[in-house]
């Protein structure tokens, strides 16, 4: 089971891609098949089980789009 899980507030995302660049496990990718109401493409999580809940993506997100959950007791 994945150590961490992230949730997006997609309405606020401006698709700057900083989260994809700072994810240490490289599981965030651009999803060009979907857009939000602002017209920006969305970010998709591939291989969700690899998420370690480090919150780097959320920390670098300028628009506070990402909420990060981590399994209690697990460390990054």
């Amino acid at each position, binding site marked *: 089971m994945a150590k961490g899980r992230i949730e997006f507030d997609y309405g*606020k995302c401006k698709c*700057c891609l900083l989260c994809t660049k700072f994810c240490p496990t490289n599981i965030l990718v651009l999803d060009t098949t979907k857009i939000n109401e602002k017209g*920006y493409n969305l970010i998709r999580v591939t291989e969700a089980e690899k998420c370690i809940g480090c919150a780097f993506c959320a920390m*670098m997100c*300028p628009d506070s789009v990402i909420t990060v959950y981590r399994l209690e007791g697990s460390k990054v």
Partner: protein
Amino acid sequence: MEKIVYQKSKGLTDATLSYCPGCTHGIIHKLVAECLEELGVLEKTIGVASVGCSVLSYNFFNCDMQQAAHGRACAVATGIKRTRPDSVVFTYQGDGDLASIGIAETIHAANRGENFTVIFVNNAIYGMTGGQMAPTTLIGQKTTTSPFGRSVVDHGEPIRISEMFATIPRASFIARVSVHNVQNVRNAKKMIKKAFQYQLENKGFSLIEVLSTCPVNWGMTPYDALQWVEKEMINYYPLGVYKDNYENK
């Protein structure tokens, strides 16, 4: 069981930030909001917004805000702090606002040792008006008003605000930080928090200069802009604490 390790700060409203995609104003807003939230002073904080991209920051910070005329945020903050000394007062200013038109107000506020915190966002360009040259624009940097790059002969050297303010005796805490990667974001938060703590302890004027990006006007992707900060800006604007009147005292 899962626990939340990172979520949107309560110090920010639900409004969507008006900044361009990838602009680090958003990160700096988050850091200020998180610090105020963690110190438990959101209810008694009054922020002063400047003119520039951050002019609408009164919509984003979840505390009382006042909008000041261009460059006059420190003068307005002085008035607010003196009439409401129990409030936590901060100004949030860009480089066009603080380093250019508002330099006099800021220097004199520091010289008087006014007890508030200045968050100075330095992105080396005028962002909102379309990318004109700022006092902090680097040598050789192309902007709409310096299309061949800034030259020392015509425009002088970029102003190093933190170094300048470190020479003012009554300024108590001056630091320059950056938000170009996770480690620096954490450090920036630590410094901003320290500045607010100094204010709560009545230790006087504090200024945190945050190196920021302007991907649109620099003509770069957000990630390239962060790398430009690391490679170019930090060379000219070294990070660190420039003045701490209360260190080891």
